């Protein structure tokens, strides 16, 4: 501080020089007598306070921090290219479960309806296959089977000519969509495929079939028979023949990955994974998807990275500051408003009014405000109160619970001021009571009031931030410094993403500290006994 006093002395010297110059300039015109009032430079009390305040370097630092915070919060939001709730995306390659492919190693049954050949009959059939004869009985129905090709069994109800079901290792799929082909058509295809024919007839039409099992109606492919079952996870995905063939090739070649280009020319990469428990291959598609750009590190685009929801952190910080400051000011305004009116009445009137108001103050002083706000916050959570209305309730509540201290202060001040001579003088002039209060009493309380208000701005901001941190104050989508830090509750964020919570904490600390420094400086500046 030594250099500060030196500097002060320096400025004082300069001031004296200037004054001397002025005096000598005026001295030429008319010489003032030594006790002339005009020789003394008079400053108004306000100017004195300002001068004393500006001399306090710590307080001025606080003021500068505050000014910066205000610009940051109120102008920053306008300057920032992003909105408070603007979401950002990035593309990320993710492996999505796409489908499964399985080689048939058990007999599959194809029937018009599953009930035509129930599972009990299927079991009986398997037993009968190993035994002699080609008939078996199940649930009172006698079935007969015929082997119509390698691994192709056709089942009839005994005495009927039309087959009820076909048992085979292959399955038939339509080439044009996911619809099921009619049973007789499937039967015809399977029969042709099993016997390695090149053509067959069905429903009066001639179809061609090749070695791979592709069924052609003239030039158009209609269906195919295959030993592999390929299924997509999503019902609405139609797997083309080409895709299935490539997939099967890849499986047979024991490849781990393959890529496929569809008709539209888009290439996708697939990963094959053998699952021993179901003896099938899982097919994963690694596709690039658009995801929220969450917790991205600081970059030139996002100076402080992005938060949990993929919103720009710096912009959130600016809007958060705005909310925190707004709430601070409104709460302190409410507190002061109630406090000054009740404290003023109490101090001025005295008697039973004073007694009554002071007991009310005692009661409010005793009510534990933090727990009450936590309870009400939890209730508002349960009732799903709109975040905006919630913010309003929060301000009213904080203001309504916090006025007792100010009322006490105002009352105490007024009690002592009331007894002073200037009030007797004011009374003697016969002016109205309201004018006496508002012109003569209240202005004398204002210095104390300003100091207390500045200090309580800081503590209100902390209270609000604490509540928001606990998730009971300002809620998403609104940002506040407290609810930005809220992410720390996730230990992973605490450990890995410092840029999420440290800047908000520093803003909070700097603002509250600045309010306290300024309040402290003001207290010193208002104190006329200060000998600096």
């Amino acid at each position, binding site marked *: 501080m030594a250099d500060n006093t030196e500097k002060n002395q320096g400025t004082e010297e300069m001031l004296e020089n200037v004054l001397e110059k002025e005096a000598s300039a005026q001295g030429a015109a008319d010489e003032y007598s030594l006790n002339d009032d005009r020789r003394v430079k008079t400053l108004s009390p306000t100017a004195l306070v300002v001068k004393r305040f500006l001399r306090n370097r710590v307080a001025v630092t606080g003021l500068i921090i505050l000014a910066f915070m205000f610009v940051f919060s109120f102008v920053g939001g306008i300057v920032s290219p992003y909105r408070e709730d603007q979401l950002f995306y990035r593309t990320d390659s993710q492996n999505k479960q796409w489908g499964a492919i399985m080689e048939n190693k058990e007999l599959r049954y194809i029937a018009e309806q599953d009930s035509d050949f129930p599972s009990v009959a299927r079991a009986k059939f398997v037993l009968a296959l190993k035994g002699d004869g080609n008939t078996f009985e199940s649930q009172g129905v006698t079935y007969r089977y015929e082997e119509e090709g390698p691994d192709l069994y056709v089942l009839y109800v005994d005495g009927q000519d039309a087959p009820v079901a076909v048992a085979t290792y292959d399955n038939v799929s339509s080439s044009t969509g996911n619809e099921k082909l009619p049973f007789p058509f499937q039967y015809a295809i399977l029969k042709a495929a099993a016997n390695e024919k090149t053509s067959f007839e069905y429903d009066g039409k001639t179809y061609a079939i090749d070695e791979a099992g592709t069924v052609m109606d003239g030039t158009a492919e209609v269906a195919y028979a295959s030993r592999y079952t390929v299924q997509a996870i999503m019902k609405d995905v139609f797997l083309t023949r080409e895709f299935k063939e490539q997939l099967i090739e890849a499986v047979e070649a024991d490849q781990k990955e393959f890529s496929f280009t569809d008709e539209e020319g888009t290439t996708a990469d697939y990963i094959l994974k053998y699952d021993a428990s179901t003896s099938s291959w899982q097919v994963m598609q690694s596709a690039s998807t658009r995801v929220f750009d969450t917790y991205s590190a600081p970059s030139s685009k996002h100076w402080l990275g992005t938060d949990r929801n993929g919103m720009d952190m710096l912009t959130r910080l600016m809007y958060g500051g705005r909310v925190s400051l707004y709430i601070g000011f409104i709460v302190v305004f409410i507190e002061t408003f109630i406090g000054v009116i009740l404290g003023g009445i109490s101090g001025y009137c005295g008697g039973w009014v004073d007694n009554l108001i002071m007991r009310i103050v005692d009661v409010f002083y005793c009510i534990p405000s933090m727990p009450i706000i936590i309870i009400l916050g*939890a209730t508002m959570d349960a009732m799903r109160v709109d975040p905006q209305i919630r913010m309003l309730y929060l301000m009213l509540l904080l203001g309504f619970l916090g006025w007792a201290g100010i009322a006490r202060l105002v009352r105490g001040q007024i009690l002592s001021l009331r007894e002073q001579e200037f009030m007797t003088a004011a009374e003697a002039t016969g002016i109205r009571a309201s004018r006496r209060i508002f012109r003569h009493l209240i202005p004398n309380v204002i210095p104390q009031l300003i100091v207390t208000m500045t200090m309580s701005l800081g503590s209100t901001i902390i209270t609000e931030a604490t509540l928001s941190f606990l998730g009971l104050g300002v809620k998403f989508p609104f940002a506040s410094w407290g609810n930005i830090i809220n992410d720390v509750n996730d230990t992973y964020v605490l450990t890995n993403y410092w840029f999420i919570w440290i800047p908000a904490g520093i803003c909070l600390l700097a603002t509250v500290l600045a309010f306290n420094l300024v309040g402290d400086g003001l207290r010193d500046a208002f104190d006329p006994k200060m000998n600096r």
Partner: protein
Amino acid sequence: MRKYILKRLLQSVVILVFVAFIIYVLMRCLPTSYLEQVARAKSQQPGSKSFEEWMAQLSATYGMDKGIIPGFLSWCGRAIRGDFGDSWKWTVPVTQKFAESVWISFIMGAISFFFEIIIAIPLGVIAATKQYTKTDYTITIVALACFSLPTFFFASLLKLLFCVKLGWFDLGGLIGRHYEQLSTFGKFLDRANHLVLPIVTLVVISIGSLMRYTRTNMLEVLNADYIRTARAKGLPENKVIYHHAFRNTLIPLVTMLGGSLPGLFAGALITETLYSIPGIGFVSYQSMVTGDIPFSMFYLVFMAILTLLGNLISDILYAVVDPRVRIA
């Protein structure tokens, strides 16, 4: 003196009744979500009564079926006999849960109170004796910074540094993973280890205001006439400060510290919650968030009693410590 204490006590009781009434009204106005929740869960059990029947039974059990004034009167009647009902969240009597959790809070509070005093008061005295020097400004700014530090931010910083980076402490809780296998002394050390960070947080957060309070009062004393007299007598500066000035500074200090003694039982709501220490603060936070009316009601009234008691103690101490003060 006795008359004054009696008068103040009576006054406090009246204020307490009003505070309790306001809190009771507030509690009753809350949507009784927890009761409904319990009733719904119970009614969904096989072969159970209907939701409405459960609701009626539960409200009768918890005195929620009466009007606000009769309900309050019956609550008061039971509270005077020390019966605060059963906690909805903890499913034990409120007083039992309170007795379980208050001691850990008290230990935490007492230790941090001790550290607070031995750190803040000397620093405050030093700052005052070296007014407007670099030391004074440093101490003042540090005090204000501690005072302005949001608890949750500071606790998070400590956790990052000591729990994650250095791995000295656990992130939360009162006992470690291997608590049950430890010897008695090991158990004690384990608990102590878990209390270090909460106590550090509490001390740092509360140190600022005490430091400033000491400094302000010390400055006031140092400007008094009897100090000028002492200096004029030619007493050594040390004697002036520690014999004449500091003893007089003790008057407001003892008054204030005495007044904050009951607060040791109040628990640190935020700090305990942040470190998951199962003290009265964390327990009541959980109760309040889940809408446990009997426990919240008890906790709020308890807090009000502590505040009143604190005011009473500091007013009485004011007269006891300072022989110049006479109470009519």
